[in-house]
């Protein structure tokens, strides 16, 4: 199974995401922001970093990169798409998922081993987890506070689209402790913490993050997102 990993100028965690894909048993394919083609991949990851230096707003410029056009179309057609951290911000800017990521409430960049609870195990990226499984993966960002209006929040809660929540103290001021959400169809997931940095206890706090990558492979073997 081929999983594309997009590199924008300023992307940082692309090699980490590719490593995680390989560790889960997939084939990682490099996608370049300036090429409007997906090279026949079965799913795509938008990795973390500071694409375009976070100029204007995080993800606001990347969202207009040539690669985004075929990607948005494919994702709307059901292709699994995961946005991690800066990738989550790109997804929000591209309106593939609702809401926005704003400056952490305490105004500092925060890098910490974060416990999150997986609350929806039916998406393309979370089906390897047990419901309400608590996992520890790195959280590292300056603008990770998830915000949306009350109506959207009600909808997300009501439809079970909050896929992961922070456990314990709110690390950044996100509404309802939201760490990750999905679209209606469950193929697109935006996630603030970094599962690609938790694929081996040698280099991360745990191997808990691997589940996101094995999930998508499982999804693809089963014939794609529902």
């Amino acid at each position, binding site marked *: 199974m081929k999983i594309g990993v997009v590199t924008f100028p*300023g992307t940082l965690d692309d090699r980490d995401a590719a490593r995680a894909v390989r560790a889960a048993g997939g084939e990682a394919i490099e996608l370049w922001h300036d090429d409007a083609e997906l090279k026949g991949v079965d799913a795509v990851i938008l990795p973390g970093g500071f694409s375009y230096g976070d100029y204007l707003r995080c993800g606001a410029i990347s969202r207009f990169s040539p690669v985004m056009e075929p990607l948005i179309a494919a994702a709307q057609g059901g292709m699994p798409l995961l946005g991690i951290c800066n990738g989550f911000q790109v997804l929000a800017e591209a309106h593939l998922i609702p809401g926005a990521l704003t400056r952490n409430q305490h105004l500092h960049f925060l890098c910490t081993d974060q416990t999150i609870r997986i609350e929806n195990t039916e998406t393309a990226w979370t089906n390897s987890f047990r419901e309400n499984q608590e996992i520890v993966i790195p959280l590292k960002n300056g603008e990770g506070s998830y915000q949306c209006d009350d109506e959207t929040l009600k909808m997300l809660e009501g439809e079970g689209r909050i896929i992961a929540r922070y456990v314990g103290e709110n690390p950044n001021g996100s509404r309802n402790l939201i760490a990750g959400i999905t679209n209606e169809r469950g193929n697109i997931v935006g996630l603030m913490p970094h599962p690609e*940095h938790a694929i081996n206890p040698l280099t*991360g706090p745990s191997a808990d993050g691997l589940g996101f990558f094995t999930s998508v492979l499982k999804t693809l073997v089963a014939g794609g997102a529902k």
Partner: protein
Amino acid sequence: MSLDTVAAAIANPDLKQPYAELGLKPDEYASIKEILGRRPTSSELAMYSVMWSEHCSYKSSKVHLKQFGEKAVKTDALLVGIGENAGVVDVGQGYAVTFKIESHNHPSFIEPYQGAATGVGGIVRDILTMGARPIAVMDPLRFGPADAADTRRVLPGIIAGVGGYGNCLGLPNIGGEVVFDETYLGNPLVNALCVGVMKHSDIKLAKAAGAGNLVVLYGAKTGGDGIGGVSVLASETFESKGPAKRPAVQVGDPFVEKVLIECSLEIFAEDLVVGIQDLGGAGLSCATSELASGGSGGMKVQLDKVPLRDPSLSPEEILMSESQERMCAIVEPSKIERFLEICKKWDVTSTVIGEVTDGSHLEITFNGELIVDVPPRTVAHDGPVYNRPLAKPDYVDEVAKDVINPPLPTNAAEIKEAILKVAATPNLADKSWVTDQYDRYVQGNTIQSQPDDSGMVRIDEITHLGVAIATDANANWSYLNPYEGAKLALAEAARNIATAGAKPLAVTNCLNFGSPEDPGVMWQFAETVRGLADGCLEMGLPVTGGNVSFYNQTGSVAILPTPVIGVLGVIEDVRARTPMSFTDAGLELYLLGATDENLSGSEWAYLHGMRGGIAPTADLQCEMRLIDLLLTANKESLFAAAHDLSQGGLAISLIEMVLRHNIGASVSLENVGISLLSETPGRVIVAVEPTKVSAFQNLARVKSIPLQNLGTTGGDALVINDATISLTELRTAHTETFKKLFG
């Protein structure tokens, strides 16, 4: 103002020039005239002034620093030595590692965020320039008292600047130091270390060889920031009054640097450059004169081709600007097309600004008029050399007479109070408030980072080869005895990587001192260099490069002599490293190394207002046997954990170990106050499984390292004799300090 050309300099020899305002002394100005056989043009004067500044020319330190070469050990491990942008060390399996520390002290005081950020940016470009992919950074930092108003101004900005720049470059921050002392008030120290990795064949040097080859400037456009940063800022003492120096601080853009790194690595991978130099201190003046000196000397540059952010800049300003994120490459004409193509892919501005000639002069024109015509070596390497007067300051013998006898805990209540005090004092308290603002995970190869003894990164995912780095300074000891202080810092850094099982290979340094024009400071400096050179020779470790920062003083008060020593080591399999703390109960805790009663220079003495006494004498033979023991024990998997003892002694090491994985320990100590609070060098605490104790005892006997059984691991408290401190209480004391101070 009309252009001051070479022709004008000849025609108008007596023009009064502002050399003093540019930081040059009258005799230095005279020798420039002698070199050129005429007065310099204003552009030449600009170049000489920045390149002959203390920061760039090492004019006060050179006569001492040459000991690092003279006393150097013969080693095959050193692939590139002192003099290039950074030294390069062979770490096996075809890999070479380059590492270096630089200071960005003065800019960080003026403008904390940008000063610290561009300090990271500068050292990263030095590493990149060697042909290496930067893989990690570390930041040894020093501040005035933690509760001082100015510390609250500079510390948050400096931390945010280090994080803001390094995080955005995708470089894990794997360690460093945060130390407070009143002498750093007004003179914070921001030292930045970067390490990079490459294959042997990829090493790049700063040389402009081959007539006809092109000089290419690429990266950010040149602006008016950082003009005279090295001469006006870094080479003068701050006075309480005086003009604002803010415009002399550079402004960084890490996004541009990140793109520049990826672009450069792609260019290197296709072998498209003959020589390369980054633009840091002294900007284009430095890059052009150093590249030309590295070749035959001939180079022509058309300065009007330099892309500008501000079109009103004069040629002198263009030559002196320290705008960040710029590189200068020497490229063969046949490869220029591909070079420019890669720059275009990354949206990096690149411009051919000149070419290498077979002459011996660096000639710079502006709109067709010759404004610089100099032998480049005279700018880059033949600057003034001062053998400045030095004299042992009076304080040294005075404070040696001080009796250092702070009150020591004896009963349970006092032990508990002392432990909580040590846990919470700013110099020893948990630094997560700082390090949580740095990304330690990016690149996915971080094995160890703060609060471990050393930072460790994997450099090969298949073979698990890795490198470890530690930086250390003990300014309290350097103050009492700079010769021993330097040796002790070296030993501590080496020990800090050996506890994990990494073998020390090479040394870098950042020597932070007051004004070299003060004979007492110069004596401290000379003694430090002598100590470090002797220590490196004795331990068989080459010095691969370093940095000197003088003028860290406000008025007549200099900082404590602060030689920050970095040691790099190699570990064959990072999976087999010895961790810094234990994850099991029931392990035996031992102290390796003897403890004496001298509290001079200790944190406990400092907490009681005592800074005098006599520094310990470094026993490097013993340190080397201890390192041997640690490496052998690692190979034989004898230790469940090993943790260095340094500032704060056994007390803080125990605190850090029990809090790491929330597993307590019970120890019983004779002479409990000294046992907990003495900082005798050459000691390590280890945790050993009961079945491995006898093998370990044999090893210690063979290496002649004294041993002392302390107790066992387990429980939910740190128990010392009859004092019990719950881990919860201990954690609160250890972790609240920074939150309370800095929010």
